[in-house]
C-alpha cells in the first residue's frame, strides 16, 4: 500500500488513490513474515562484518549504512510528509560537528554524544521548519539548498568547533559500556575498526528503521502522510498542518544528525565542505531510487547509490577501450559516472516508484509462479 506514496503530490490518478485508502506501514512486529525479516536483518548485522574480511568493502558498506540513516530521515520529510528537501546534508553536518564537539572536545561518552548530535540537529530542524514550510515544491527545494550553503559558511567561521577550512580530526570515541566499536573484541576474538563500525552503524540503522516504522503508525505519523496525500483535505480533517509538518522536519533533521555523528566517527576527519550540495542531492537520489515513503526504500537506495559506482568501477577497469590512467580520453571514473547517471535515469524511467516496487513486483511474480501447485 505504501507504494501509493511514490505517486507524489503531483500525480492525480483519480479514483485509484482514493480507493487504495490509508497508507499502511508494514506492521513490523505483528506478522510472522516481518518478524522473520527482523530476525534476518539482525543476523546480517552480525554475519556480514564478521565474514567480510576486506576493510575496503566494510568501509563501503559503512558508508552505505550512514547514508541509509540520513536517507531514512529525509524520507520522513520528503517521502512520508511530502516536502521536497535538498538540505539534509546541513543537518548531517550539524550532527557530525556536534559529535566531535561533545565526544571529542568535551570527551563525553557515546551514550551522550550520539543522542546530543541528534537533538541538536533536530532543534535546528525545528527552528527552520516554520520558515521552510511556507514554501512548496521547487521553492522549498532551493531554499533548503540554501541551508547547505549557509551551513558551510557558518561552519567555516567557527573554527573553534569545526576547525574552519582545515576541518578537524574526530576524536569522539565509539564506546558503549564495555563495547569499544573501534577495537571490538567478542569472546577473545578481536575485530577490526571497520567491523566494529559496521556493527555500530547498521545497528543504529536498524533502531532508526524501527523508530520510523513505529512513528508512522502513531497518530502523528498518519497525520504526516495525510498532509502529503491531500493537503487541503487533511487540514479540513483536523490535522494541524503546521505542527505536523514541523514534526516531520524535526524527526528528519534529528535522524540526519545521528547519521552525521556516525559519519564523523566513520570518517575520523571532517571539514565543512564534506556537507555540501552533492551530498544533499545524493540523499534525495537515495530515497527516490529506493522508493519514496517506503520503510526500506532508503536502505535499498543507499545500497544502489553506494555500491553501483564501486561495482561499475570494478568492471570498467577491465574494459579494453578505457584509457590508461594518466592518459587522455575517457577515464574509469568518467565511465563510472556515465553509467551511474544513466542507471539513475533508467531506473526512474522504468519504475518511478523505486527499487522497493521492483522488489515487490518480483516477489509477486515469483509467488504467482509458485501458486498453481
Amino acid at each position, binding site marked *: 500500500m505504501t507504494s501509493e506514496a511514490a505517486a*507524489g503530490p503531483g500525480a492525480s490518478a483519480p479514483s485509484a488513490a482514493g480507493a487504495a485508502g490509508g497508507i499502511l506501514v508494514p506492521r513490523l512486529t505483528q506478522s510472522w513474515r516481518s518478524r522473520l525479516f527482523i530476525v534476518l536483518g539482525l543476523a546480517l548485522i552480525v554475519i556480514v562484518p564478521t565474514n567480510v574480511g576486506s576493510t575496503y568493502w566494510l568501509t563501503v558498506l559503512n558508508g552505505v549504512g550512514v547514508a541509509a540513516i540520513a536517507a531514512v530521515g529525509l524520507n520522513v520529510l520528503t517521502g512520508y510528509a511530502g516536502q521536497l528537501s535538498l538540505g539534509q546534508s546541513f543537518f548531517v553536518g550539524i550532527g557530525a560537528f556536534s559529535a566531535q564537539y561533545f565526544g571529542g572536545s568535551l570527551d563525553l561518552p557515546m551514550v551522550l554524544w550520539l543522542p546530543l548530535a541528534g537533538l541538536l540537529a533536530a532543534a535546528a530542524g525545528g527552528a527552520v521548519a516554520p520558515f521552510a514550510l511556507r514554501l512548496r515544491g521547487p521553492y522549498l527545494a532551493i*531554499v533548503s539548498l*540554501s541551508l547547505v550553503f*549557509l551551513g558551510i559558511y557558518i561552519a*567555516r567561521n567557527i573554527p573553534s568547533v569545526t576547525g574552519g577550512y582545515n576541518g578537524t580530526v574526530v576524536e569522539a570515541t565509539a564506546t558503549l559500556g564495555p563495547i569499544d566499536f573501534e577495537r571490538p573484541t567478542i569472546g577473545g576474538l578481536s575485530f577490526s575498526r571497520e567491523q566494529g563500525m559496521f556493527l555500530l552503524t547498521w545497528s543504529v540503522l536498524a533502531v532508526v528503521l524501527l523508530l520510523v516504522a513505529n512513528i508512522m503508525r502513531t497518530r502523528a505519523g498518519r497525520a504526516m502522510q495525510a498532509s502529503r496525500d491531500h493537503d487541503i483535505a487533511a487540514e479540513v480533517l483536523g490535522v494541524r498542518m503546521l505542527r505536523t509538518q514541523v514534526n516531520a522536519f524535526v524527526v528528519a533533521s534529528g535522524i540526519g544528525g545521528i547519521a552525521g555523528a556516525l559519519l564523523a566517527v566513520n570518517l575520523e576527519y571532517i571539514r565543512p565542505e564534506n556537507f555540501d550540495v552533492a551530498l544533499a*542531492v545524493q540523499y534525495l537520489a537515495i530515497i527516490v531510487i529506493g522508493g519514496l515513503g517506503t520503510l526500506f526504500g532508503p536502505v535499498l537506495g543507499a545500497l544502489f547509490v553506494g555500491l553501483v559506482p564501486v561495482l561499475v568501477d570494478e568492471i570498467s577497469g577491465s574494459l579494453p577501450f578505457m584509457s590508461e590512467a594518466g592518459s587522455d580520453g575517457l577515464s574509469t571514473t568518467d565511465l563510472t*559516472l556515465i553509467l551511474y547517471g544513466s542507471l*539513475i535515469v533508467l531506473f526512474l524511467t522504468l519504475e518511478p516508484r523505486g527499487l522497493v516496487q521492483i522488489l515487490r513486483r518480483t516477489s509477486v511474480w515469483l509467488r504467482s509462479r509458485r501458486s498453481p501447485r
Partner: protein
Amino acid sequence: MTENLQILVGGIASGCLLALIALGFVVVTKSTGVLNLAQGGFVVLGCYLTYEGRQSWGLPFWLAVVVAAILTALIAAIIEATVVHPVALRGLYPPILVTFGISIVIPAVAAGIWTTYQLTLDDPWGLDKVGVAGLTIAQRDIAVIVVTLVVLALFLAFFRFSRLGLAMQAAASDPEAALAQGISDRVIHMTAWAMAGALGAVAGALLATTGGGGVRPGLETQALIALPVIILGGLTSPAGAVVGGLLVGVAQQFAVVRVPDVLGSGFHEVAPYLLMLLVLLVRPQGLFGSAEVRRI
C-alpha cells in the same frame, strides 16, 4: 564614485550571465514544472561545442556560438523526449532526479571527448576594453550585456508573437487545459528544453571566453550559482530571472569589497542565498512569481 560605478558594471555583466543560465531554468520550470538540474550540463556543452566549432571546424566566433546553441538545443530536446518526458508527469521527484542523473552524465562525457585540459576559445574580444565616461569596460562585458538583452528581446517576442510561444504560455498556465486545446505537451516540453539548451550553451560560450576564464572543466557548477536567482526572481518568471540575475550579480560584487570582515570568510558566496531568503520572507513567491505557484 567611479569605483562604485566600475564595480556596478562588473556586477551587471556577471549578473547577465547568471540571468542567461537562470532563464534556462525558468523556461523549463514554467513550461514543464520540472526543476532541471541538468542545466549546468548545457553550459558545459555550449562551451565545448563552441570550442569545437571555432578550433576544429574553423568557424567564425559568432557562427560557432550559434552552431553550438543549435546543437545543444537539439541534444536537450532529444534528452527531453527520450528520458525526461516519460517521467515528467509522475510527480515532483522522479523528473528532478532524472535531470540529476543527466547532470552527472554530461560533464563526464565532455571530459571523455575534450579532456580536462584548459583550452583557448580565441574569442573576438580577448582583453580589449573601451573607456566610457571615466569608466573602463571590458568589451567582453559589453558583449555579455548586449547578448543578454538580445536574448531577452527574442524571448519576449517569441512569447508575444509566435503561435508556439502562445502555446507555451498556455501550457505553463494549465498543462491539462492546454492539452485539451490540442497543444501537444511533447512539443511544448521539447521546445522548452531546446530553449534551455540554447540559453545554457550561449552562457557557456561566454563563460569560456578569455574574460570569462577560458574553456575549462567544471563549468557545470556555474549553474548552481543561478539557483538562488531563479527563486529570487520567481521560479516561472523570465523577467524575474533577469532582474534576479542582475541583483545577485551586483550584490555579490559589492559583497566582495564592501562587506566588513566581521561577517567572516566566504560571505560573498552566500550573499545570493541571504538575499533570496530576505526576499522570500517578504514575498514567498519571489519578486515576480505569481502566487499560484505555491499550489504546486
